[in-house]
């Protein structure tokens, strides 16, 4: 036997052949997603092929680690909540628009109060020019009664965009009492309970000091868990940070770090992880970076489930389910040629659906111009309806699961998210990280680099830095304005409300509130509800708590 002296050249594999052919034709420019992950031109089984880790990393929906969805049936069972932001003008205006949306296929409420309310004021404390321009002027139980007239508050999921001290929800609770609806029948979310996100990235919602917000939140969680167990008293917000410039991986990482901070607070207050954490929900941006967003959410679900088990020893299935509301990203929309935004929102909405969210708001195309009008809001909800009921994309659960690219990207996003969490941990947790300005600086850097990419043309924004059309009247869309006579009547209504209530009762309610704020064995949120029952307005409750617990002053905007 003679050994072959020459080893015959091994035939190139398909992959090797492709690599050579690809290099000959490709433009050579590397591609990165927004989170900075470098994308290969193609993915094959060798990039993600781990059948042995299928159960551990992917599995089936409704099963740990929930990569493919938190419920077994996902949209084959109940669909998501089509939850459209509504806020404009007076309580009557809200009522009309909400009923219109419910008739158009929306099945949930997403209440946006006036900016003055966000800032913690009644309308008589601010310039009337600003009232009702961006949200509904609602200051009293009477206002909420009008806003919800004829709407079954126990029959729809109520998203209340109302930061600490949650006065609007207190109005809802008292309205439920009036209507004979038990609190246990209410479902919905305290959408803006995540004060960290306000301190970092949405100052308008930042009403009380960090310490004050912390106190009220823990009491709010405890109160709602006890009296209204189907209510989600905390929604942790990655959306504000991504809108402010955070990359998708940063937004997810910072939101999860915030959630861990809130969990630690509740545990320190004596609560048991499996008794409260299933009522934590999340709220995220869904940008036009299509596959990245889908991978972000698949990875987020997995990280949440794992860390809840590993860090907190959570045992209940419901504790491990990562529930979230998604909002299509307004920052991706353009003022130029605004009708193009309908296409963008449809793509963002599709990404949200393929990622397995529980609740969705789709932006109106005039988002970059003004507060959406009734007409543009209807197109936005119809976009959801088209996606949900015409395209067939909801027929198969996690339809992208098993794609080598999506699975690999999900793993990489997971690594990026875990890296963000590790950096926050190293600073002592989210509270410390924001107090030191670390999170703000990181987000600022990402925002700058995104802007630079647009200015240099590295990132294309159609109609802005490419395919521009002459700046004629292509961006003029009618803007809905509050009716000034109706706003005047709202001032009269508030004055009448203040005049007609019992001053003695009011004093009792507000002093009870101040007392509760200063006694940690009292529940401040219970005192908020009581103060409102005694006739207090939104602004009076916030003013009282600002006095007792401190005014929320963010760091200098660009110091």
């Amino acid at each position: 036997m003679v050994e072959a002296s020459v080893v015959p050249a091994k035939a190139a594999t398909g992959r090797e052949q492709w690599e050579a052919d690809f290099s000959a034709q490709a433009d050579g420019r590397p591609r990165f997603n927004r989170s900075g992950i470098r994308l290969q031109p193609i993915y094959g089984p060798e990039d993600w092929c781990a059948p042995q880790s299928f159960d551990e990393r992917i599995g089936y929906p409704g099963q740990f680690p929930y990569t493919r969805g938190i419920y077994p049936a996902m949209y084959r069972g109940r669909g998501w909540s089509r939850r459209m932001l509504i806020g404009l003008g007076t309580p009557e205006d809200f009522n009309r628009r909400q009923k219109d949306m419910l008739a158009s296929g929306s099945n949930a409420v997403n209440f946006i109060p006036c900016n003055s309310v966000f800032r913690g004021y009644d309308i008589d404390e601010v310039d009337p020019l600003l009232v009702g321009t961006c949200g509904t002027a609602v200051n009293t139980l009477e206002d909420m009664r009008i806003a919800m007239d004829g709407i079954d508050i126990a029959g729809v999921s109520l998203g209340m965009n109302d930061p600490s001290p949650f006065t609007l929800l207190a109005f809802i609770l008292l309205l439920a009492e009036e209507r004979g609806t038990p609190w246990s029948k209410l479902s919905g979310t305290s959408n803006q309970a995540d004060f960290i996100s306000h301190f970092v990235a949405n100052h308008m919602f930042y009403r009380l000091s960090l310490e004050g917000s912390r106190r009220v939140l823990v009491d709010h969680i405890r109160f709602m868990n006890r009296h209204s167990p189907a209510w989600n008293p905390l929604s942790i917000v990655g959306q504000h940070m991504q809108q402010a410039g955070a990359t998708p991986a940063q937004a997810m990482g910072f939101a999860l770090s915030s959630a861990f901070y809130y969990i630690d607070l509740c545990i320190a207050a004596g609560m048991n992880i499996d008794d409260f954490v299933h009522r934590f929900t999340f709220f995220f941006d869904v940008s036009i970076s299509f596959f990245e967003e889908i991978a972000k959410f698949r990875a987020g679900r997995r990280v949440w489930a794992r860390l809840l088990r590993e860090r907190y020893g959570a045992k209940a299935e419901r504790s491990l389910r990562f529930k979230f509301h998604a909002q299509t990203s307004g920052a991706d929309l353009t003022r130029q040629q605004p009708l193009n935004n309908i296409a963008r929102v449809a793509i963002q909405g599709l990404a949200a659906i393929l990622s397995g969210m529980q609740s969705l708001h789709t932006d109106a195309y005039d988002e970059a111009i003004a507060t959406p009008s009734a007409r543009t809001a209807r197109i936005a909800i119809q976009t959801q309806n088209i996606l949900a009921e015409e395209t067939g994309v909801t027929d198969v659960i996690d339809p992208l699961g098993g794609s080598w690219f999506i699975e690999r990207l999900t793993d990489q996003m997971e690594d990026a998210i875990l890296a963000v969490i590790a950096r926050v941990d190293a600073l002592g947790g989210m509270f410390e990280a924001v107090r030191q300005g670390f999170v703000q600086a990181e987000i600022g850097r990402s925002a700058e680099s995104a802007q630079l990419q647009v200015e240099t043309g590295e990132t294309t924004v159609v109609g802005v830095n490419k395919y521009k059309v002459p700046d004629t009247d292509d961006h003029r869309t009618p803007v809905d304005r509050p009716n000034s006579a109706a706003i005047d009547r709202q001032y009269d209504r508030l004055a009448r409300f203040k005049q007609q209530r019992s001053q003695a009762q009011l004093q009792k309610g507000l002093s009870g509130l101040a007392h509760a704020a200063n006694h940690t064995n009292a529940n401040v949120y219970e005192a908020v509800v009581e103060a409102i029952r005694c006739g207090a307005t939104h602004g009076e409750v916030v003013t009282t708590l600002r006095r007792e617990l401190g005014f929320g002053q963010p760091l200098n905007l660009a110091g």
Partner: protein
Amino acid sequence: MRKQIKVLLTKIGLDGHDRGFRLVAAALRDAGMEVLPTGPWLKIDEVVSIAMQEDVEVIGISSLSFDHLLVPKLMTRLRDEGLDDVLVIVGGIVPDEDVGELIASGVAEVFHPGASLAEVVRFIEDRVWEKRNAMLAKVVNG
């Protein structure tokens, strides 16, 4: 030596969105200007008094949810205090139909989403130099 351009960057009214604010602040600094950023929610009188004390040449107002409606009131107060020569610009979300009123009240320019930072920097530099030259000419020509 060229005097550094001094810019007061602020937000009035109720809004607190600050992405654009931060970007503009950084861009103006990078362009060599001195930027005085404030927190959000300033009262009009507070803006006027900072502008006066700090002797700024430019005031930039960031508005993303209708706080621009207060800007004409700011312009009146600036005029009352003799600060007519301060260059005031507005950036953010301002419906087209409101732009005319802002310009009529004395605002030099309104920058909308999609405006580039370079454009903002150039505008400020050009207008400030025009103003300085005009002032110089006035002095020289008596």
